[in-house]
């Protein structure tokens, strides 16, 4: 038995094919989801892939958040369905208020594409169980609106509740507060991060590492054992 994992395509989504490939490499069944469909085709979990949905016009994620598919995703996420937002997907999750805070233009104002070292701070989420807390991984980072901000109170709360899921190591690439690269919701089913684990699943391409595969194997195990 395997799990069905959906990957949403908005107009302007770019990394949907990569995410579908990562799901497949992990051994789960990839399912394409279309922004205009409210129907999630009975998937067990959803990935909001990277890219520039609606060109990132207005603000990254601001227009996609209002799409029909997101109505269902928001409802299901609140009911406990695992959702992973990668890069643009993370931006959609903050715009949807499924995750707190907001993403702003990088402090150096440039798009940045590089291999990024991270520390997995929490192995308690639905998407990180295959890692150990404190584990260091490297996955590609590529964005221009990657600076995570939230007010002090929210940041303290995220830290206290163990919801800072990933932190940047070896230099903060964009000015994110407290070096935050990714966070989860209180229940741990919704996770968002700026770096791209789906680009680190095949040693032949990208940076030549497979450190990102754990996201997809984590969720598969969780769903299959559930």
């Amino acid at each position, binding site marked *: 038995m395997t799990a069905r994992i959906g990957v949403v395509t908005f107009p302007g989504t770019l990394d949907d094919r990569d995410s579908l490939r990562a799901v497949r490499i992990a051994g789960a069944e990839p399912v394409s989801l279309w922004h205009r469909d409210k129907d999630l085709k009975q998937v067990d979990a959803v990935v909001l892939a990277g890219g520039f949905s609606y060109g990132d016009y207005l603000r990254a994620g601001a227009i996609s958040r*209002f799409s029909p598919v997101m109505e269902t995703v928001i409802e299901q996420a609140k009911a406990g369905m695992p959702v992973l937002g990668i890069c643009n997907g993370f931006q959609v999750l903050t715009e949807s208020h499924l995750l707190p805070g907001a993403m*702003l233009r990088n402090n150096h104002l440039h798009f940045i594409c590089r291999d990024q070292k991270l520390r997995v701070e929490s192995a308690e989420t639905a998407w990180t169980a295959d890692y150990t807390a404190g584990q260091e991984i490297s996955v590609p980072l590529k964005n221009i609106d990657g600076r995570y901000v939230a007010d002090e109170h929210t940041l303290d709360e995220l830290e206290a509740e163990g919801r800072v899921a990933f932190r940047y190591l070896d230099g903060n690439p964009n000015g994110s507060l407290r070096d935050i690269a990714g966070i989860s919701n209180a229940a741990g089913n919704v996770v968002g991060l700026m770096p791209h684990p789906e680009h680190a699943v095949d040693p032949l391409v990208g940076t030549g590492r497979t450190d990102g595969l754990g996201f997809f194997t984590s969720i598969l195990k969780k769903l299959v054992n559930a």
Partner: protein
Amino acid sequence: MARVVVDVMLKPEILDPQGQAVQRALPRLGFEGIADVRQGKRFELEVEGPVDAAALARINQMAETFLANTVIEDFTVKVEESK
């Protein structure tokens, strides 16, 4: 047709690297005496029909839920003469 302008600026406590970059560049270009620069967005909306209290209330709501992200941004709504 009337024009309504929505200005959206980052909240004062949020770092504005774009504004800062502009400010840093000014002296090099020979412009002195600018103590601070903030950069934001300006939306010009051409509104069909009268811009009455009801219309303004709708535009305020649009700004609050869509044009601005109030986690990080403030906005103002102003009615302008249309050309």
